[in-house]
């Protein structure tokens, strides 16, 4: 089934989740993510999406995410969506979910911060999404779509990863990918059936009881638990890195960007390549696990990197970790809802080239 549709990123994400057989959605409204619960509320109870058994609007962000935890403990596909200030409020529960090894999906349509900020696009939650965000040693798996098309197809990938590793997965959109309207072909999604029999809380009938928690008062026991989580994260790092490498073969200059920023950078790269520049675009799709190895490989030919983000410099730190000092890494950011123009990025690249020559 392929149908051509013209819709907003948030709506596409909601339908993508429905087609991946979303079972339970717990809502709390916040701009610019609210079209997600609105779309699901509209479809809740419809014949086509019978897998959606529960749609419930909670009284707070905390209540919504904790309802997701409860539903996930029951072994179903549970999701919620929010935007930056709300995502801050999710952190406690996400730390618990990681410790309890619960599979769930949380969508963060990143807006301006810190504090109330504004409702315009930013990528300022990169650290919070990729470095833990809550207390303790854990990671979310973070997927960053850069188009309405990917907003539609990522929920299925997110649920597959969540259940494969029993870990919370974050879809990292921003106010652009959420609000942008694009012409897309809806992907044909074949939902995966997951084996939940060894852990889900369904009542201890004809089996040993299942205890889902993260508390171990004995330091030796807790050490084992956290080490087990860490080993799981290493496996994820080995197996689940996703990225887009565009015209990076033999590239001497690499522009690195994710989400909506990568779309603008791609136009710049295409244009400069046509002009003969050896330039490429590197776009991490999984912000965690971050593609460190791929960045390091690029330094075999790339002498300089320009990292473009809608913040004051966050992913650039991971690019530097990947580069390990083998190339010059510069940063260009826009905040407050402003986008870098192609011209601005070209100027930065020109001055970067100048500096590299001078050095």
């Amino acid at each position, binding site marked *: 089934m392929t149908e051509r549709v013209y819709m907003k990123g948030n709506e596409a994400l909601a339908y993508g989740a429905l087609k991946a057989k979303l*079972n*339970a959605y*717990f809502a709390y409204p916040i701009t610019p993510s609210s079209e997600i619960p609105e779309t699901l509320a509209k479809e809740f109870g419809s014949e086509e999406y019978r897998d959606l*058994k*529960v749609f*419930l609007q*909670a*009284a*707070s962000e*905390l*209540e919504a995410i*904790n*309802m*997701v*935890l*409860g*539903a*996930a*403990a*029951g072994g*179903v596909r*549970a999701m919620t969506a929010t935007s930056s200030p709300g995502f801050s409020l999710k952190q*406690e*529960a996400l730390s*618990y979910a990681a410790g*309890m090894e619960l599979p769930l999906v949380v969508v963060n349509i990143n807006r301006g911060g810190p504090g109330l900020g504004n409702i315009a696009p930013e990528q300022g939650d990169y650290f919070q999404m990729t470095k833990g965000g809550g207390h303790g040693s854990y990671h979310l798996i973070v997927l960053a779509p850069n188009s309405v098309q990917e907003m539609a197809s990522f929920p299925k990938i997110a649920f597959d990863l969540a259940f494969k590793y029993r870990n919370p997965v974050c879809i990292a959109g921003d106010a652009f990918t959420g609000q942008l309207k694009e012409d897309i072909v809806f992907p044909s999604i074949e939902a995966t059936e997951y084996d939940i029999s060894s852990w889900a*809380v*369904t*009542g*201890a*009938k*004809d089996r040993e*009881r*299942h*205890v*889902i*928690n*993260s*508390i171990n*008062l004995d330091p030796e026991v807790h050490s084992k638990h956290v080490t087990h989580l860490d080993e799981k994260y290493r496996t994820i790092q080995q197996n689940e890195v996703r990225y887009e490498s565009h015209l990076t073969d033999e590239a001497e200059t690499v522009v690195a960007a994710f989400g909506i920023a990568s779309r603008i950078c791609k136009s710049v790269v295409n244009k400069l390549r046509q002009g003969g520049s050896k330039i490429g675009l590197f776009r991490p799709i999984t912000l965690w696990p971050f593609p460190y190895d791929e960045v390091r490989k690029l330094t075999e030919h790339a002498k300089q990197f320009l990292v473009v983000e809608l913040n004051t410099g966050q992913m650039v730190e991971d690019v530097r970790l990947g580069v390990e000092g083998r190339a010059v890494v510069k940063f260009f950011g826009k905040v407050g809802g402003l986008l870098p123009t192609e011209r601005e990025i070209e100027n930065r690249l020109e001055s970067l080239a100048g500096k590299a020559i001078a050095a």
Partner: protein
Amino acid sequence: MTTQEPSLEQYRVKLGKLEALTEKPTHYCQGCEHGELTRLIASAIENLGIRERTVMMDSVGCSALAFDYFNIDHVQSPHGRAPAIATGLKRVRPNLVVYTVQGDGDAMAIGMLEIMYAAIRGEPISVFLVNNAIFGMTGGQMAPTTLEGQITTTTPYGRDIHFTGAPIDASRLISTIDGSAYVRRVSLAVSEIETARGRSYSIKNILEAKQAVENAFKVQMMGGFSFVECLSSCWVNWKLPIMEAKRFVNERLIKQYPLGTYKDKFGIEKK
């Protein structure tokens, strides 16, 4: 205080191994009524034959380790959030019987929103609130239920309600919410009685609590939100001998928080 002694038959119900309990001894302090409540919940689960479909939400506080004691499925909750977790689970698996055991700090301070909204929506879950008028696990700080003038580690000169607000009556509060179906306040502390053979102790309170716990599960299975507030002692943090602490429950706490049925929408107690 005098009261009718329970019959031997009633007493027998409480003995023996329960299938809803593990073999693990509890960590609760000697004399703490959490032990009684554990036993009452387990026996209610057994009497109703629902062990294989009952799930407990473990809260933060003294009941955080209860997953070691109940031989059923468990889900842990962040501090105060157990009713939200219970809601999520119950909504996706409506055939389960879902309950929380929460302290007064957990439910009435940090988790006020979660318990109120679970009641407002009339979620078919059961909440057992252990009210010992103090934060027990963290070492005896003021709770929302701490009595006026009561000394705690954060009210070392006694709780001054002009600064802290007055103690919260959880049962009265929850009973005013349209969505709640069953609200009952019981005492888990044995009371002293005078008998022909001298001073003894009555477990009348506990037998009443036992009935309330069973009713709570029944009301949940009838589709209602049930709430049982269990007045309890915390002699360690109250800094009283065990039996004096139990006397404090039945003489002082009860005055602030009168026992009784605050709501019985389905008339379960008459059935």
